[in-house]
């Protein structure tokens, strides 16, 4: 990738000073401006929130084992799925890949010493933490029952739960997202190494750039919309109040103007990770590099025009519904281009089934299934039947868990040697990846069938004919939960006992593999000079 001599199999110089050696007190971590340390702070925080959200998911699946609403009351169930949604969306999925992998890798991949605004980067983490504290305070104070979408007028006029606290939490976290996006954009524009032109950027960097754009252009809308709910709750009057002529549907427009692009905030980074993993794992240059870039940018732009497909049955205009439906079908085009290009990259490749490659291949399949069912839901007529059924739940979990979480874990496994300088147990990692794939499908595929058969979401009891599939789904959730615990164990084990990784254990191309593992404080001993594109693989 660079004119500097290829660093393949070059052992790290003995006694090299990594960014971990720059101080190990808690204070040194909490005041760091090093993007790599901030990435680790984020990784720890979002893992915590992931476990918290998983507990809520466990509550949901436990309740749904039996048709009767016997384990939790309806209120508790509502609070469980709301908490699951809020925590998983805003405190795990949206930050996940950008703030950990992106924060760590973006400067490395473009040959920079740090982010453009290191202090702002740390400030973003503090905002995230404070927002998380507010959200947890709401949980301790009794929870929230509005669903993660905070639909008015329920959230403004009727809910007696701690909507205000959660909204403050999400509002603050929203600014963490905005500032992270801003940092990524300026960094990508300003700090690229000499010779690193736009069409030499790795696809992961392109994905980070596109997602940063979406973060910046969508999140302010969420912040203001939620603050309108907060003000309405506080003062008892507001613009969504039907009693004085306000329109609750206006809230849905504003909310989904953010929250549909937010889906792309979750999936675009996953696409970037998958592109890096698949090209390295197949040892073939990515097929259609430029088209992958156009597809990323296309998805992020068209993604802003389709929010109305969440509102087909809400009382929105029929004609607007038709336009939104057509635009939603359009998003499938760039997404399909990406899937085709990933499979074309695999074609005639020398595929090495490492754990991260299993995750990447799993990602492509699950993303495709989630995407295709998204087309069902984009069709207005079919959507009327499927709205608010488990079909929708299955659809977005295939995208978000099957897509984003798979890619996140794949990325963690791929870059773990770079993060820590250690190798993990390959066998355990493969086992966990396969177990996760099986558990995931066992959990969520039955939900497609349940939704198709008509089982509505968000009820704590259901008709007995749905029980078999629900039991399967809950069993799958147990498998999935165990599979998620495995990486935590063997990755932690590798920190102490793993074999030293060396700078480039996967023989990957890319600037981040040229420096030591873990990298020194300012990433590169000498600023690299780039002379060719990001992927230099030969089968």
């Amino acid at each position, binding site marked *: 990738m660079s004119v500097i001599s290829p660093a393949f199999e070059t052992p790290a110089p003995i006694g090299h000073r990594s960014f971990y050696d720059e101080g190990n007190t808690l204070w040194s971590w909490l005041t760091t401006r090093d993007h790599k340390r901030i990435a680790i702070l984020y990784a720890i925080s979002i893992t915590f929130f992931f476990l918290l959200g998983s507990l809520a998911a466990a509550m949901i699946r436990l309740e749904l084992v039996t048709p009767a609403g016997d384990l939790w009351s309806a209120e508790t169930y509502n609070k469980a799925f709301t908490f699951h949604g809020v925590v998983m969306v805003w405190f795990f999925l949206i930050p996940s890949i950008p703030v950990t992998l992106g924060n760590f890798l973006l400067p490395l991949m473009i040959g920079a010493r740090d982010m453009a605004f290191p202090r702002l980067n740390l400030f973003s983490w503090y905002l995230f933490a404070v927002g998380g504290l507010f959200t947890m305070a709401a949980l301790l104070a009794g929870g929230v029952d509005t669903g993660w979408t905070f639909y008015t007028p329920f959230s403004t006029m009727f809910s007696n739960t701690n909507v205000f606290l959660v909204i403050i939490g999400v509002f603050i976290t929203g600014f963490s997202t905005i500032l992270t996006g801003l940092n990524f954009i300026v960094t990508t524009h*300003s700090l690229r190494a000499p010779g690193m032109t736009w069409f030499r950027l790795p696809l992961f960097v392109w994905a980070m750039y596109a997602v940063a754009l979406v973060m910046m252009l969508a999140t*302010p809308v969420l912040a203001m919309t939620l603050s309108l709910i907060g003000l309405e709750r506080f*003062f008892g009057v507001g*613009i969504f109040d039907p009693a004085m*002529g306000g329109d609750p549907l*206006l809230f849905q427009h504003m909310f989904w103007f953010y929250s549909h692009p937010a889906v792309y905030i979750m999936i675009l980074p996953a696409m970037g990770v998958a592109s890096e993993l698949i090209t390295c794992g197949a040892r073939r240059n990515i097929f259609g590099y430029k088209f992958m870039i156009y597809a990323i940018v296309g998805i992020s732009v068209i993604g802003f025009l389709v929010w109305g497909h969440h509102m087909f049955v809400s009382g929105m205009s029929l004609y607007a519904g038709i336009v939104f439906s057509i635009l939603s079908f359009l998003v499938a085009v760039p997404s399909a281009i990406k899937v085709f290009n990933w499979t074309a990259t695999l074609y005639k490749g020398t595929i090495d089934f490492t754990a991260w490659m299993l995750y990447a291949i799993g990602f492509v399949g699950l993303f495709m299934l989630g995407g295709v069912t998204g087309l069902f839901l984009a069709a207005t007529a079919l959507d009327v039947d499927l709205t608010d059924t488990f079909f929708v739940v299955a659809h977005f979990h295939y995208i978000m868990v099957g897509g984003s979480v798979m890619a996140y874990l794949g990325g963690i496994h791929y870059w773990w040697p770079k993060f820590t300088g250690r190798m993990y147990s390959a066998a355990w990692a493969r086992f966990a990846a396969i177990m996760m794939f099986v558990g995931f499908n066992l959990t969520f595929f039955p939900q497609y069938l349940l939704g198709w058969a008509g089982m509505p979401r968000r009820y704590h009891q259901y008709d007995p004919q749905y029980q078999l599939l629900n039991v399967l789904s809950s069993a799958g959730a147990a498998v999935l939960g165990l599979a998620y615990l495995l990486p935590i164990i063997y990755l932690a084990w590798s920190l102490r006992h793993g074999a030293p990784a060396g700078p480039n254990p996967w023989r990957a191309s890319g600037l981040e593999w040229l420096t030591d593992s873990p990298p020194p404080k*300012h990433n590169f001993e000498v600023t690299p000079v780039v002379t060719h594109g990001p992927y230099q693989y030969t089968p």
Partner: protein
Amino acid sequence: MNSISHARPAFLEQQFDDPLQQRESSVFGMWAFLATEILFFGVLFLGYAICRWRFPVAFAEAAKHTDLVLGSIETAVLLVSSCVVTIALRDLRLGGRRLAAALLLATAMLGLLFLALHGKEYYDEFHEGLMPGVHYTLAQPHAVHMKLFFCLYYFITLYHSLHVTVGVLLLLAMSWRTFRGGFSADYTTPVEVTSMYWHLVDIVWIFVFPLMYLVGR
């Protein structure tokens, strides 16, 4: 760490190669931040547009209750302050210090004047009973829908005043740093991005003013 051998000025942060790169990054970042601010306020303008489209008569009635004279003066104050901060930045770039610090302070004072005038408006409106949810005494035919206008009026102006307050604090800090000699003709970036923020606060108000004060006159 850096292969660059020439001397690095003290204000240059380690991730940048030279002062120009640092300045351009900061300015670019501020423009990007301003874009997010436009969307942040934009949601309120969307709410305004939809509600006004649904209840044009009520909005025209309600807007008559705002104080046109005070609103116009406030607009003029912000326009003047924008000009003053630009002159301050110009002076700083030409190597000035005392005048720049004084002008930055003057800008902050104009911001405070704006806040004071707006506070006067709020005070009058409270006594007139125009605050839905707090003190609302209107009982004319469209009084219910007029609440929508007042909600938007308070939400928008409160968020705007919040931004003015932040701007005043930033300007005061910049004035102090300028006075203490923290900047030079080569290094004005913090003042520059502060002034950009201040201009944005002005631009938002330029759109608030006709929509809140000039309707139904």
